[in-house]
């Protein structure tokens, strides 16, 4: 082995787990590093680091090593090598993985082992990616801080006393701490973008229907969107390329052709119109967040984008619409957890099947899940349906019309992802309504079904700030193009936490 190669090996093996997808693929495809080396380095890093963070519910060492060996065989023969072949990743624990425990961070699914893969997992496996584990989350996605996990809380790697955001908090914490090259999160009302913002990660909420939901344990069937969380927009594009597209198992997945996201990244953004929704820049925003977003907008302007103010007049109604529809759909979706076919079953002392349901659901669900199931039944009940659920669905139409009108005037919108940086653990757990209000900038996109990309854009009091770009339906290519252009002239996304 030449001296030069030895230096490369030594320096890269020491930090192999830090590599982006693009950098890792470069080394793997040149056979300078094997997938097994990369995967072992990642697993070792997880076992050393995660005890401080608690991002993982399950680490699948044996499965990961076996997949890495398979990837290396593929690389040896050169057959079916993709940009993800041999790359370690993990997913939020609401995405079904065959033979790997899938819990939704709930006691009711604590020992549930799916007998099939979600479509996104099958597609990543076909591409040769290496699944290393499953990420902690707010129970069933219900939360904004990852503190609602039934197992343990996840700490923000930038400050272990603070939350990572939620509900894909484990995924964001893992990616920023280099425990896997990328993650799949799931966004029902900010659950990819908010933790991405709190943890300095690039995260994409895809257009509703762009990515198959088959095998995703449903929270809100008309909002849920799976998307990538990664080091940068380039890596998000690489993952989206693999997971996007119609799936016969999900009738709501869209037949629209999947563009070449990577090829599109290099297009200049000069002349693209960027809208600033004035309703997203009002009192209550942390000053360091606002100054970071304003500076990012100036950078985008310097790149040649045309900046204009727009209005989304129903913005303040986004939060009640979002939560009303969420309660209603979640209440219906979670009826399937009844202790008869899978998951927890508390049968002792049950005289009839109703007792089984009452006992199982009492023991299996945490307080936030119970709250939302009951509130959902309440807003759907005969006397209140028109006043709450139907009213919310009508205002939802107006929210969508706001976006439609704005996208007549611009190609994308820019806004803060969250009004603040990551808050302290325990700060909002006693008051559910205050916790709900932290989602104020991220919830409106999901009732409208539009895509949004959260990007690192600065720091406020030493904590990361995220900016979100919102686009019209199926404009992921444009959002990634703008994100790539921004990250080509900034280095916020390259900053990593020092974990003590």
């Amino acid at each position: 082995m030449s001296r030069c190669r030895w230096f490369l090996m030594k320096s890269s093996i020491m930090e192999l787990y830090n590599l982006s997808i693009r950098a890792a693929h470069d080394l793997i495809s040149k056979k300078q590093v094997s997938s097994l080396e990369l995967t072992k380095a990642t697993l070792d890093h997880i076992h050393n680091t995660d005890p401080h963070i608690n991002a993982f519910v399950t680490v699948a060492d044996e499965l990961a090593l076996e997949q890495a060996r398979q990837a290396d065989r593929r690389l040896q023969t050169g057959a079916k090598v993709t940009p993800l072949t041999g790359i370690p990743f993990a997913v939020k624990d609401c995405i079904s993985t065959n033979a790997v425990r899938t819990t939704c961070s709930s006691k009711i699914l604590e020992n549930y082992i799916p007998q099939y893969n979600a479509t996104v997992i099958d597609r990543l496996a076909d591409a040769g990616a290496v699944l290393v584990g499953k990420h902690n989350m707010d129970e069933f996605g219900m939360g904004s801080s990852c503190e609602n996990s039934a197992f343990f809380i996840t700490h923000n790697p930038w400050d272990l006393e603070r939350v990572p955001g939620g509900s894909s908090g484990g995924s964001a914490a893992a990616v920023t701490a280099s425990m896997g090259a990328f993650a799949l999160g799931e966004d029902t009302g900010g659950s990819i973008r908010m933790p991405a913002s709190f943890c300095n990660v690039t995260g994409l909420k895809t257009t509703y229907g762009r990515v198959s939901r088959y095998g995703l344990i449903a929270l809100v069937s008309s909002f849920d969107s799976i998307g990538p969380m990664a080091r940068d927009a380039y890596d998000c594009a690489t993952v989206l390329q693999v997971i996007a597209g119609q799936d016969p198992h999900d009738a709501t997945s869209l037949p629209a052709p999947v563009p070449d996201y990577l090829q599109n990244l290099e297009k200049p953004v000069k002349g693209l119109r960027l809208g600033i929704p004035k309703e997203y820049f009002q009192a209550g925003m942390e000053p360091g967040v606002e100054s970071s977003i304003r500076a990012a907008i100036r950078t985008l302007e310097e790149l040649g984008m045309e900046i204009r103010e727009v209005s989304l007049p129903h913005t303040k109604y986004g939060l009640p619409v979002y939560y009303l529809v969420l309660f209603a759909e979640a209440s219906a979706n979670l009826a399937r957890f009844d202790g008869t076919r899978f998951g927890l079953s508390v049968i002792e002392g049950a005289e009839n099947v109703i007792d089984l349901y009452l006992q199982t659901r009492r023991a299996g669900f945490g307080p936030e899940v119970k709250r939302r199931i009951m509130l959902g039944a309440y807003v759907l009940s005969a006397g209140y349906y028109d006043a709450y659920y139907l009213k919310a669905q009508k205002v939802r139409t107006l929210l969508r019309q706001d976006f439609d009108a704005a996208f007549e005037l611009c190609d994308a919108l820019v806004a803060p992802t969250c009004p603040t940086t990551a808050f302290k653990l325990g700060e909002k757990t006693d008051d559910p309504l205050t916790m709900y209000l932290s989602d104020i900038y991220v919830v409106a996109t999901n009732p409208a079904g539009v895509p949004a990309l959260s990007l690192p854009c600065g720091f406020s009091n030493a904590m990361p700030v995220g900016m979100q770009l919102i686009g019209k339906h199926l404009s992921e290519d444009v959002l990634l193009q703008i994100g790539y252009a921004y990250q080509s002239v900034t280095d916020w996304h390259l900053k990593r936490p020092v974990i003590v």
Partner: protein
Amino acid sequence: MTPQEPAKIDFTIDANMVKHVAFLVRLGILEEEAQAFSHQFTAIIDYFHLLNEVDTQNVKPACETSSTQNVMRPDEMQPSMSRQDFMKNVPHQDGPFVQVPLVFDEE
């Protein structure tokens, strides 16, 4: 953006209502839980009255998120999960059957 004060409506969800709803959704809850939920539900539902500000006359409710077209496929048999795989997660089994406690009264 600060949340607007919702329109004030004299409104409470009491503990009895909470217990009633809990039974409807088949959740066992304790008396003290019902009390705590009662206060939280009142605050949360009260916040939703903010929507009363919006004029929704002649507005159609949103019934779909991204497409208005029905998705059709040929009605053909396809392989699905095997009984053996399905039964691996069933907590109480009696031979080839899923076992549950009494569903109907014996009368």
